[in-house]
């Protein structure tokens, strides 16, 4: 079978017509399947973190902690929220009209940048919480163990997150390789 024999099948595909009303709904961000989910999760996260910022000082004795611990906690939380917002805005960015290879390259750069900042911010955020809650603690053997256990859990989460990002980056790298390998062969 020749490739040209696929042409009639290709031409006839896609006759399942969507109405203009259906198409119109698809142009609205509010109906976007993926972004809607991300937006809801982001909104919940921001509300919870902001509420925590409002109450932590009274509930967790912020006034009895040193200034550096309060600053660390607030900075960690604000960075976390900012990183989420930047990630969301980055996803909102429309695809470019450059060629496919360039587009995948640009996307790879964006994902690499996002992954770096996301992991860094998670690390800073986790550290800020530890700094805040341990700043006035008199450590006993048990408390050291709890701290060690929490640190291990946080490290595991960061490693897991880093693996997910790596898998995504690896796939994009493979796509770039697909483009480049063939160009090198014909060059």
């Amino acid at each position, binding site marked *: 079978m020749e490739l040209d024999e696929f042409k009639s*099948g*290709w031409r006839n595909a896609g006759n399942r017509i969507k109405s203009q009303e259906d*198409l119109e709904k698809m*142009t609205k961000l509010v109906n976007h399947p993926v972004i809607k989910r991300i937006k809801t999760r982001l909104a919940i996260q921001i509300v919870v973190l902001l509420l925590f910022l409002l109450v932590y000082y009274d509930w967790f004795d912020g006034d009895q902690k040193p200034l550096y611990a309060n600053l660390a906690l607030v900075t960690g939380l604000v960075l976390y929220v900012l990183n989420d917002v930047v990630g969301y805005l980055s996803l909102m960015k429309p695809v470019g009209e450059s060629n496919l*290879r360039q587009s995948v390259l640009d996307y790879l750069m964006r994902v690499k940048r996002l992954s770096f900042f996301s992991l860094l911010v998670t690390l800073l955020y986790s550290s800020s919480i530890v700094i805040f809650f341990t700043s006035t603690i008199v450590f006993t053997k048990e408390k050291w163990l709890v701290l060690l256990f929490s640190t291990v859990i946080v490290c595991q989460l960061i490693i897991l997150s880093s693996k997910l990002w790596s898998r995504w980056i690896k796939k994009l790298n493979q796509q770039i390789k*697909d483009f480049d390998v*063939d160009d090198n062969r014909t060059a």
Partner: protein
Amino acid sequence: MEKQFLQLIHDHQEIIYKISALYRDSKEDREDLFQEIVYQLWKSYPGFRGASKVSTWMYRIALNTALAIYRKPRLKIDHYPELPPKLHSLREESISENEDRLFEALGKLSDAEKAIVALYLDEFSYKEMAAITGFSETNIGVRLNRIKNKLKEIIK
């Protein structure tokens, strides 16, 4: 502007359908990609001045969206080493057998090869294909030959 856009997309929506079917396996993922492409076309529409053909503009955005946009994590789909004869019964009933087999065969190509073959099947020139994909024109020819051989093996 919205009315014009909707008419344009309505008239050429088979391009979006085909790219969605080519790059996604499940019905749900195809629907998501279809919607994503329509959304991206809408965002890009103000910049479309009609300097290129509508189909060129739509393919460019649709392919860029399929390859370089956030995709939700999904379960790994195992491909059959060969096409099962009753493949159509394994997938949604609304897709005809021929169309199903066509997309199953094309689905075994790499993402870059899928882009080339889609443009070839819609009769774009090598020059247009090179501009959309970023390959050189010579490379398009070389890759098309390899794709033909690969597809012969797949449908043997």
